[in-house]
Every structure is written in structure tokens, then in C-alpha cells.
């Protein structure tokens, strides 16, 4: 039998690992259930002293558009976590009902609205950007966006602004 003399591999302590310094989140979905994860993670980052950058693209633009920010929906069709038959989910009123239920639950937890989350993020120093190409594609201009949006930028600009960041796609 061959005896190996290697030291046992030891997990580094959490305090010895290099901490995250910058979190960059790409928000590409515009439903209520997909809006919150990005917003809450960015806020948690800021609360821990981590820089946060948010890049809203494709349907994610709905999260930062004046017309839609207060009216995001929970999808009842094509949502595998919804646990109701797809045909039922497509009935009129189902989506409004699911949205209402989720909003009620969030109110119980005293979770801020999407608009308020954007205000909190902006106050906390998080940077909020909109995607140039998605804006052109959906025919939106800067006037259509909430005031917390810093700038409309390209994907390449986004990577420049994400220097040293962990990038997360939602």
C-alpha cells in the first residue's frame, strides 16, 4: 500500500476568502417575480458595503419605465412554479389574481414596492443603467424612464462599468 503524505485539504475560513467588492446585475425579465431578486440582491450588496451596478435590458426595461413600473405582473402561464394547470392560468383574471396575491404577501413582509426599491437603490449609491439596444428595439426614450436611471448605455459600456465585478444574469 502506498502511503501518501499530502496534508488534508482544508477549506479556507470565510474570513480568509477575498470578499466581493462589486456586484453587477443584468435584469432581463420584466415580471414582478423576476424584478425583485435583482433589486433585493443589489440592495443587500449595498447594505454590506459592496458596489452595485444594475443593467436593465429587454423586458427588464419594464422595471424602470414610468408606464410599467407600478404595474408589473406575475405570469400564470409558462411559469413552472405556479402549480396550476396552464389552461387555467390562461383564463381571464388569473394573472391579476396572482399578482394581487403576491403583492399582498409582500405587503405583509413590509417589502417596498418596485418603485420604492429603485429609489432606495439610487439613494444607496447603486448605479442604474438602461440598455441602448433594448430601448431602440422597444421604441423607448430617456423620457420614458424613471428618474433613478443614470444613463442609457451599450452592452460594452456596461462591461466597462462592471470592472472587477461579479456579473449576475437574471
Amino acid at each position, binding site marked *: 500500500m502506498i502511503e501518501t503524505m499530502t496534508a488534508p485539504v482544508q477549506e479556507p475560513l470565510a*474570513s480568509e476568502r477575498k470578499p466581493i467588492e462589486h456586484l453587477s446585475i443584468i435584469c432581463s425579465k420584466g415580471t414582478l417575480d423576476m424584478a425583485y431578486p435583482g433589486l*433585493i440582491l443589489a*440592495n443587500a450588496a*449595498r447594505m*454590506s*458595503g459592496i458596489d452595485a451596478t444594475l443593467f436593465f435590458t429587454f423586458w427588464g426595461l419594464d422595471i424602470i419605465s414610468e408606464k410599467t413600473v407600478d404595474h408589473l405582473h406575475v405570469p400564470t402561464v409558462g411559469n413552472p412554479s405556479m402549480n396550476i394547470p396552464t389552461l387555467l392560468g390562461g383564463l381571464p383574471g388569473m394573472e391579476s389574481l396572482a399578482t394581487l396575491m403576491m403583492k399582498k404577501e409582500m405587503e405583509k413582509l413590509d417589502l*417596498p414596492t418596485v418603485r420604492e426599491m429603485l429609489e*432606495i437603490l439610487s439613494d444607496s449609491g447603486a448605479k442604474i443603467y438602461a440598455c441602448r439596444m433594448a430601448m431602440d428595439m422597444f421604441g423607448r426614450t430617456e423620457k420614458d424612464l424613471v428618474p433613478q436611471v443614470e444613463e442609457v448605455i451599450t452592452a460594452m459600456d456596461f462591461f466597462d462599468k462592471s470592472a472587477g465585478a461579479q456579473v449576475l444574469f437574471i
Partner: protein
Amino acid sequence: MLHEYAGKTIETTPDGFLVDSAQWTPAVGEALAAEVGLKPLSEKHWQVITFCREDAAKEGQSPTVRRIAKLSGVSMKELYELFPKGPGKLAARIAGLPKPQGCV
């Protein structure tokens, strides 16, 4: 972990929160703040720390950043200026309270 703050031997969690918040005194708070580079503490810092201690005594848990911004009279923006390394953990830590459990 055992530390010496303001002449007292005090036990903290691995991430620096006091195990027993009753051991806290304003001098301990100053020592905890100095440890994270906050020195000296301004009047606004004390306004936040005092609010956190009073609120935690009433509610039984450390206030979240949102709660501090809503009720302490110090705005969200100011909180981030006062605690640039993150008001979420630092306000509670300097106030000798446990790590806040809220995500917002």
C-alpha cells in the same frame, strides 16, 4: 472570539457582532467603530446608534436599514455617507446588536 474594547473583555461572533448586547457602552461603541475605520463618530452617527439600541430594545431585533431610514430621522442617503462600508451590518455592529435579519 474575545476582544478587548474600552478596557473590557468582550466576546464577539466571528464577524464582529457582540454576543451579549448588554455589555455595550458608548465607549465600547467607539472602539467597535474605530475597528472599522470610523473615527471619530459624529453626532449623526450617534443619532443612528441610539435609535438602533432603542428600537432593538423595543422590537427584540436589530432594525433594518429601511427601518432606520424611515424612523431615525437620518435619511437613506445620509446613512450610506455615515457608514460607507455598509450601514446594514455596521450600524448594528457598532450599536452592539446582533446582525440584522431583514433583507431590505
